[in-house]
């Protein structure tokens, strides 16, 4: 497989509501399943939201539900695998809509690749991160820094991986992330003890995604689209 065979369009969406991007993903996946459209990588920061995996419809919370509501955090059921997680500003979320058959990739290979991409990103900041046997995501010194959940239908993926760059970590205290009561979450900023620009992390993510999956990445200029739509 060469880079000529794999191309992915990268859309940096900026700050978004979860529902908007969720609907977009579903459309893109449906389109890709039918052999249309393009392989796409959506990068975004969500406004505060707690999402639930398909098999875990009951939120695994550490606080009363009303507290979540009081924080203004939305709650969404999704079709991805995995358990409860939190997304919010300061977290880089990467959703890949990829036709794995076209890329000649297995699902597990793709999941490993997403984790490897984040490990590459963290290495750019001098952090040594790793996979963990039996617990998906990316870990730094026993603390979880990135969470992962996917849905695959007709070998087309949706959902992806979320890397904590500098989110409000107190929001993770509201839930049992991934359904694991003992998990300790961390972020790139916390590990570095300094602020890290999100734009730099996004750029690094795109670079390492291309490197790991041997694919060409085409950045789509979203500002032009915004202008075109007035």
């Amino acid at each position: 497989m060469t880079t000529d065979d794999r191309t992915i369009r990268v859309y940096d969406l900026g700050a978004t509501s979860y529902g908007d991007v969720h609907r977009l993903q579903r459309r893109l996946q449906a389109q890709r399943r039918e052999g249309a459209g393009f392989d796409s990588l959506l990068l975004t920061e969500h406004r505060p939201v707690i999402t639930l995996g398909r098999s875990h419809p009951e939120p695994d919370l550490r606080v009363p539900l009303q507290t979540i509501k009081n924080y203004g955090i939305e709650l969404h059921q999704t079709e991805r695998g995995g358990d409860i997680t939190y997304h919010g500003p300061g977290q880089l979320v990467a959703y890949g809509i990829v036709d794995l058959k076209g890329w000649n990739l297995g699902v597990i290979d793709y999941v490993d690749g997403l984790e490897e991409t984040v490990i590459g990103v963290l290495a750019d900041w001098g952090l040594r991160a790793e996979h963990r046997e039996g617990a998906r995501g990316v870990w730094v010194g026993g603390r979880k820094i990135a969470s992962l959940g996917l849905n695959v239908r007709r070998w087309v993926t949706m959902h992806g991986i979320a890397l904590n760059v500098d989110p409000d970590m107190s929001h993770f205290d509201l839930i049992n992330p991934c359904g694991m009561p003992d998990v300790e979450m961390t972020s790139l900023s916390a590990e570095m003890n300094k602020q890290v620009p999100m734009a730099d992390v996004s750029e690094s993510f795109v670079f390492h995604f291309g490197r790991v999956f041997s694919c060409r990445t085409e950045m789509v200029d979203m500002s032009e689209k915004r202008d075109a739509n007035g």
Partner: protein
Amino acid sequence: MAVSVELPKLGLQAPPALLAEWYLPDGVTVHRGEALCRIETNNVAVEVEAEGDGVLRHRLEAGRERPAGDILGVILASGERMPELPPVGELPIPTATANHGPSEDEWQASVRAMRYWPPDATEPAGDDPEPPPAEPENAEPAKAFELVPFPRKAAPAEPSNWDVAPGDAADFASALLRPETPGPLPRDDTAVRDEPEMDAAEHSHSELGAAPETPDAVQAALSMRVTVDLVETHKLRAQLGREWRDADLSPTNADVVVRAVGRAAIEFGGDGSVALRTFDGEQARAVMLRDAGLVPFRQAVLELRKNEPGPIDAACIVSLFEDVDEAEPPLEPGSSFALAIGGERSAVRWDGERAGPGAELTLTLRCDPALVEPFEAARFLARVRELVEAPYALLVA
């Protein structure tokens, strides 16, 4: 020719995966491309689609881990003759509690050996040299695979979960660049908003009627959402709570929605029967209301409070998800509609001039497009919202 439903191989060293859920019940007619079940492993959910048309028969129950390649079920082609199939007793359905009969591996081998679906071209010949195991003496034929006659009539198959129209092209510009506001936007009262899942449903009420029907639009499961402003609903609830103080009775949002659904169903030519399903942890409770739109409102609310679950055969099942904003309601075979009521949340309300505090919830409607025109479904949902937002009309019996 029958087609197997297999647990896909997810990688070179794919671990066992959990058969998490059958989306479609045993015995229903399915079509190629429909999502049949979901398997999960390591935070990945994979939806397995039908590889052909026919009647789905489950082989394994949900909730079990299985290795890649395992046969989860079979799709029998229409009109397929039974003599081609193996004797009933040799195909017991493995269950979690079964302590008799062949092991699952033996069962799997036997199923493969029978080959009543096309052999895998990549599979080496003689892969399964074992003969099918003999039926154990204490096997119970009643639990075995009964292939004909199917107990169901040609029931409407539940549409694939989370599906959208295949032809629903992604338009980044329109999908992404909607104006961002902190709360509900000022809007046309007749519009179905908040992104119904099909292109057709994104148009206004009147446009829906004129939109051309396309094969793609009707093949997909239909799922659409609206956000409902609850300001008037709250006023009504407060007023009725005062009036019904003698009975210590106060209507909830769900009562109002059920009433609105019943009323809208009658307006659209239905019988107005509605079932309300609530969840208490893992337990679901459903109450059936025959004339949800016509009986006096107080009586309807009292009926919904009764703890006497009976048979549920309502045209529309309303599920209350208090903890989730947007939920996909399960669509029961035989029901035209399923509606989910999301949890109430605070919102910024725009009255045309200024913003103020408000409350809203999301209604999600799912229906089988084989039974219901998508445009009608969108109009139905718009009407339900209209009734909930101006609920005083619901007081008239």
